């Protein structure tokens, strides 16, 4: 057995499926004003933050859960969830990593995310979020030197209220849709990054999300602000233990790019997808939205979606500044009973705005995959361009692949082009590879990687390798 095969065998089962046995502090079960006050209180939040939350909650009470999406799920009882869960040892925030609960350190080690800085060679600053709190942020000093703020959002609320006040809710307002509003009311932690004017962030910033406690929803909030002329590349990774029940993950991510700034946001999403019969797994209902506020700004989303029982998200770009650029690169893989309804929205408001969408969907087993996207060029967005390509690959006739693009062009000087194809791996390609000594599974892995290459190329190095492996693993057992 060669190395690759061994590696695959090692990884065959969801290797992040372990649970960390750690004592938790939880908010009382259910969703009401007291719970929101509890969260706000435990985070020692200022008054305006609590008001923000309560306003969102008021709005949430009036909203109805949407039902237009393709993957249907059993009704979620929002009163039967814990909205806050944190390791007990985090009650008084440890000053440095040596004070951190060894169990937490070990968890992250197991996940392949060492938090000790000296052990890291590749220089990625990590913010590790465990259930509802951020447990550690690395490389902070080095970043501070350049004026970059990278810290848990709960800290930012206290230390940089002027920035948070200005930008929080400016892209995803409290009056947004059902899940976003829920998040605004009960969000617990997440990352905050601010890149000052004309600074090119010297390393990748990264957040690692981990759901550990059962019966808990994770509602984190990420806010990234790139000031004029700055650049940042941000990575996000996620895992969760194997559990029989479904867990809700409803995060909000807001990006703001000012004049000439660029934000690159990459996600490798590997939440627990449920077992072979579709039992358990994470409901990944995430709202991600970027605002190209300034001239010549750029926001680029790259996502590799392999996990979650249901993935339902549309990372979007609002191209408000003239000459701004939005990009979306996505690979979504569903196997067994996974379901995904994902895509993007490109809203062109400014002149000379450009957007590009490359989406690759692969479905196998009994899974169901939908690309749903919106390209909207408003009447003021003269000279704008969009190019969309969505390709789907089907393996077997028990799965489904759907494409639902919405295309709106209200400007005669703008061009939109959209292409989509659906196909399967051809017998010829398979035969060719097998003839050269690859096994059927290896051949499929190779072909699929080729199919996804355009998107994988967009990922930062470290992620690309991981993502490539993930693509192979996610399709395990779908051949033949």
């Amino acid at each position, binding site marked *: 057995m060669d190395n690759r095969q061994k590696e695959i065998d090692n990884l065959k089962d969801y290797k992040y499926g372990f649970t960390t046995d750690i004592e938790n502090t939880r908010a009382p079960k259910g969703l009401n004003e007291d719970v929101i006050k509890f969260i706000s209180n435990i985070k020692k939040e200022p008054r305006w933050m609590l008001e923000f939350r309560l306003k969102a909650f008021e709005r949430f009470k009036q909203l109805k859960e949407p039902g*237009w999406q393709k993957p249907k799920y059993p009704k979620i009882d929002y009163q039967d969830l814990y909205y806050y869960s944190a390791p007990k040892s985090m009650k008084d925030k440890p000053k440095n990593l040596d004070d951190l609960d060894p169990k937490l350190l070990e968890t992250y080690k197991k996940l392949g995310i060492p938090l000790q800085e000296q052990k890291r060679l590749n220089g990625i600053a990590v913010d590790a979020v465990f259930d509802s709190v951020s447990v550690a942020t690395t490389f902070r000093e080095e970043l501070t030197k350049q004026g970059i703020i990278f810290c848990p959002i709960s800290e930012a609320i206290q230390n940089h209220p002027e920035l948070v006040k200005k930008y929080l809710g400016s892209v995803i307002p409290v009056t947004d849709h059902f899940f976003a509003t829920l998040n605004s009311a009960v969000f617990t932690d997440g990352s905050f990054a601010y890149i000052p004017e004309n600074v090119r962030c010297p390393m990748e910033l990264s957040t690692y999300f981990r759901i550990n406690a059962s019966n808990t929803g994770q509602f984190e909030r990420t806010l990234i602000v790139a000031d004029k002329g700055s650049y940042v590349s941000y990575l996000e990774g996620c895992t969760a233990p194997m559990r029989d029940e479904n867990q809700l993950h409803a995060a909000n991510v807001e990006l703001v790019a000012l004049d000439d700034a660029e934000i690159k946001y990459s996600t490798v999403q590997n939440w627990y997808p449920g077992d072979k019969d579709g039992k358990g797994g994470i409901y990944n209902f995430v709202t991600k939205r970027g605002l190209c506020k300034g001239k010549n700004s750029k926001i680029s989303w790259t996502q590799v979606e392999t996990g979650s029982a249901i993935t339902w998200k549309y990372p979007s770009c609002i191209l408000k500044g003239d000459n701004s650029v939005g990009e979306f690169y996505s690979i979504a893989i569903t196997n067994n009973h996974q379901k995904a309804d994902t895509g993007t929205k490109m809203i062109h408001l400014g002149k000379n705005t450009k957007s590009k969408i490359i989406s690759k969907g692969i479905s196998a087993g009994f899974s169901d995959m939908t690309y749903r996207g919106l390209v909207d060029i408003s*009447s003021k967005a003269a000279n704008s361009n969009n190019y969309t390509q969505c390709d*789907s690959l*089907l*393996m*077997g*006739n*028990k*799965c*489904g*692949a*759907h*494409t*639902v*693009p*919405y*295309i*709106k*062009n*209200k*400007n*005669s*000087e*703008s*061009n*939109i*082009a*959209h*292409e*989509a*194809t*659906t*196909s*399967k791996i051809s017998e010829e390609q398979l035969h060719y590879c097998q003839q050269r000594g690859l096994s059927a599974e290896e051949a499929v892995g190779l072909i699929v990687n080729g199919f996804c290459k355009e998107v994988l190329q967009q990922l930062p190095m470290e992620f690309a390798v991981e993502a490539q492996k993930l693509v192979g693993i996610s399709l395990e057992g779908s051949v033949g």
Partner: protein
Amino acid sequence: MKEQLQKDFDNTIRNLTLSQKDIEIKKFYLDNFINKGFPNRKEEDWKFSDLNQIIKKNIGELSFYSDYTSTNKVDTSAFVDGLEHNKIVFINGRIEKIDFDYEKKDQIEIIDQSETINKFNNYNALSDLNSAFTNKSFKIVVKEGYQLTKPLIIYHTTNSKIWSKNINLRLNFELYENSSLRLIDLFRDTSEKNFLNIFYNFDLKENSILKNYKVDKFENKNIKYSFNNIEQEKNSISETFILSSGSNFCKNEINCNLNGEYSSAFVSGIFSLNNNKHHEIRTIVNHLTENTKSYQLIKSVLEDSSKAVYQGKIFVNSKAQKTDGYQLSKAILLNKDSEFNAKPELEIYADDVKCSHGSASGSLNEDSIFYLMSRGLNYQQSRELLINGFLLDVVEKITDPEVKNLIKNMIGIKE
């Protein structure tokens, strides 16, 4: 609206000789419609065209009762010249003439189904409205192996006698094995502000061929909705061409079920719009068995503040391996106020398929105009030439040469 509907319904029923049971059925549809009302943008299928609003804005209050007791004079000068054809003439929604002079009498059967309600697959609020109010409904059967020698033209004529009226039409066609029918729908309206609601049902048996050309060319202020349901058996072919141009608002829906192996469906359409017109084509092609094929091509040229919508869906179920599905929509926006919306959708449950779609919209290519102008054409001529060529592509998809010429002449497209 409810009282109006109820009153008009009672008047309509009074003029018909229906059994108690049929009246009950019609009542059922009426109640359905009253519950649903005209479709609005909250419904996914009507997302881009809110019919409820459009009717309110353009017509206001509709009346649903038409007095069909007296005949209308058929104006023969309106008939198409230079092409021998069979005719069905509707004037203000009343069937005035059915004439298959060019065909063998025993090969075509016309069945009056007015006294029996045949259920249309309960589709939407408008089919309910149609079922409740249609007063005459015919079934046209083409017998086994018979191919009509001449095309059939259905004249949909309305004149200024009607105003703010809702007119409901329904026709059923059955094409037996190895038969074929060429059908042209020609809309001529001199009336204003009426709502026409037309439902066709086609049953295509083995090896039969249907070609349906819908031409809405003449300027008018009416609102139209037309629905074609096409059921196809083995080896059958359906070809649908839509010229969507004249009415204020028009929505054409094609629902095509490819039930038999090797059946194929072709849909092509042209939007040529100006002023405030708002037109939509929505197609659903359901590939339900192996080795079926579909091809769709829609092109739009939009002037002033007109708006065109194309919603196309290819559905492939898990049995329909070896499906070949294709869909392309292209639009040229000539004015900054014009708008093109598209939703080309694929829903696929089988793996051995070849399905793709493309959609593009934008302005006229300035480089091409420059090229033509550098060869001596003026701006206007260059523009016309380019648009002509752009649309000719669709007209060329018409497989019947006689009809192709007729349509080319009608819309003034040159080769």
